[in-house]
């Protein structure tokens, strides 16, 4: 097990190294001089040169890459060109919104998807099942920003129960913060819940057809008891896999929702940084997200190996 873990860990490091080169090159070769963007159309040539020197942009590609990558190994993400504050601080600030938002959305989607998926599987082929299939189909097809706009129109503009967006900051209290994240979390959760409910339903239906369930039924359990005591646990494996994937999606993919609700999260920060050519912010955040995904994959690999010893062998 240990040797397997070490092997997986080394391959994780290699992936990160390759990713850092690819990200750096991809972003640096995009045309657009950050200094020119910051100083606008009236700037004189010597002013631009002064700013480039200040930002370290006058150096070659290799020294800049080594500087950036080396700093990151020490936990130093550099200083944002436009905000002139350390990128690590900015990311940490923004994570305090994006992370709770992702968790909130994930919780909501689980709370919706589990009962709905179980109900559909239990009533397979019935009216409830068909209804759920139809509704979740819509949930998957409709983009989350559209849900977001509908929620704002109803709950913020017409009813006035919520703000249309923005974030008061956690120092304003847990409840105020959660309230501000509620509509965005619902908008994010609805499509996720639809997918999850469908996965839940089909995984349950698959396990319900397995021999051990039939055996349980033969021993006199009611269909409901068989589902609860035997099928559910086994159906959770595919559901948890999807849930894990959804989490990284929610963290990285909330850009549009953060814009609709003008939340100062990570996604919106990257969005702005791209427009402002704040290359160091874009590079660092993308790298961080890649790291998160690779890490999750690594942990999932380890978990699988733990569960299924056959995986530790070959490869």
């Amino acid at each position: 097990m240990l040797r397997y873990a070490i092997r997986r860990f080394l391959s994780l490091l290699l992936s990160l190294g390759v990713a850092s080169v690819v990200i750096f090159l991809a972003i640096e070769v995009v045309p657009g001089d950050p200094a020119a963007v910051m100083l606008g159309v009236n700037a004189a040539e010597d002013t631009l040169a002064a700013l480039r020197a200040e930002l370290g942009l006058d150096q070659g590609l290799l020294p800049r890459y080594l500087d950036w990558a080396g700093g990151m190994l020490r936990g130093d993400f550099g200083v944002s060109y436009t905000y002139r504050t350390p990128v690590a601080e900015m990311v940490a600030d923004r994570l305090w919104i994006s992370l709770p938002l992702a968790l909130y959305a994930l919780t909501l989607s689980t709370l919706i998807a589990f009962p709905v998926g179980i109900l559909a599987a239990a009533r397979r082929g019935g009216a409830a099942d068909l209804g759920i299939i139809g509704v979740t189909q819509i949930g998957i097809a409709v983009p989350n920003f559209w849900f977001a706009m509908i929620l704002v129109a109803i709950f913020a503009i017409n009813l006035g129960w919520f703000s249309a967006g923005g974030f008061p900051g956690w120092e304003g209290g847990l409840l105020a913060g959660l309230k501000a994240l509620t509509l965005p979390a619902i908008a994010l959760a609805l499509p996720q819940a639809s997918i999850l409910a469908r996965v839940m339903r089909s995984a349950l239906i698959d396990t319900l057809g397995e021999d051990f369930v039939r055996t349980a039924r033969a021993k006199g359990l009611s269909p409901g008891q068989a589902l609860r005591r035997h099928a559910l646990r086994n159906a959770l494996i595919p559901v948890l896999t999807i849930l894990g994937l959804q989490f990284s999606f929610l963290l990285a993919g909330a850009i549009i929702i953060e814009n609709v609700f003008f939340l100062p999260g990570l996604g919106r920060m990257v969005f702005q940084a791209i427009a402002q050519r704040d290359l160091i912010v874009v590079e660092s955040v993308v790298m961080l997200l890649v790291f998160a995904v690779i890490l999750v994959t690594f942990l999932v690999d380890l978990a699988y190996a733990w569960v299924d010893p056959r995986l530790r062998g070959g490869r």
Partner: protein
Amino acid sequence: MHRMLTAAATLSLALGSAAAAQTSITIGMQLEPPHLDPTSAAAAAIDEVVYANVYEGLTRFGPDGSIHPGLAESWEIADDGLSYTFTLRPGVLFHDGATFTADDVAFTFERILADESTNAQKALYSAIDSVNVIDDRTVEITLERPNGALLFNLAWGDAVIIDPSDVETLQTKPVGTGPFMFSDWVQGDRVELVRNPDYWGEPAPLERATFKFISDPTAAFAAMMAGDIDAFPVYPAPENLAQFESDPRFRVLVGSTEGETILSMNNGVEPFNDIRVRQAVAHAIDRQAVIDGAMFGYGTPIGTHFAPHHPAYVDLTGLSAHDPERAKELLAEAGYPDGFTTTLKLPPPSYARRGGEIIAAQLRAVGIEAEIVNLEWAQWLEEVFRGKDFGLTIVSHTEPLDIGIYARPDYYFQYDDPVMQALNTGLEFMANPEDRNVVLGAMQDRIARQYVVGFLFQLAKTGVANARIEGLWENSPTQANDLTQVRWAE
């Protein structure tokens, strides 16, 4: 049901706000400032937060673009125009408690002119030879060459006076002399200002001001409707304005900006180095159709590179009236009876993207095939503005009084004209507004008759505000949200 709920919500909002007396305001802005030091970046969003609120210069802009005393209460100009002596206001304190003196003025300008300066408008102050401290309240600026626009240039946000001891932290904790002090900045979300109790002048009516950053137009609409935002001075979605106009809770503010929106032509390359081709392009354009189609009717047609609200403005729109037949004749005369193909490179703003589609169609009607290339802002700066690799492009020039760009042969539209250059040099020798206006008139005439570019329209400033707010600027003589006179009606 729906109407009752709306009424209840409005009522509760009104009651809630009446209880907490209205001494604060929340202003919406589409872009967040990258930092809060107007003397080291060109971002308009910086001035929109801090200009006249937090920082002040020697002179300042009034709402109509006129120049008023700021931290200098008066000045004298030497007869040769080479020296300006400013008398500074007494009893002015920086927000950190330091006293404002002539030394701060000298420091500010030495910093702007230094070799390692990153002031985006450094060129505006390049005529300054030295800044001499006479005594605490008197400072003399001497010039290498006459600079008739000096008082105007000193009013820009790029020349606000700063305290030497705060220079390292201005970007995140601005310290000025203005009626508002910086309070808090939640990056990505908002900047908060509070009233300065020790302000030298008339104190601001508002106790607090919050600038909230909402980039998405749909979100901006929702935030206004939900009452999260009290005013959105540059409202990003003109398509919603009619709805706000019909709602008594709101007031739509329509004013003018310094933004001349033009169809730039690359005068340095064929076929636009031929004045007949440029004239043909100018006659091919139907400005009103562009204003209606791209700007929902907001915008003032212009026939030269000058703001219609300026006293020196001359209406020359007739020189380039919409006349497709004349355009075809001119093209034939220039040797392009079947037209030609060129590029139309568009930056992201909607005036450019939407306007570009309409203009391409208008050009096609006279035989010019303009291939649309959409560019990001950074790409546009690199490729079009600096690289001069384009045939046509659309952009709004938002710097105030910037007709001098036509006297710069290296400028991106590459117009090299000794007459225009001589006029511009002459302008520099004049500080008297009446003399200047005569020359400015001649400059407008010259570029209009040379058809340097296609003049489209003056960008309108369209804002939305709660109907009970008074004192917001309707026009935009500089990109600022001057809150010094803003108050809630009783």
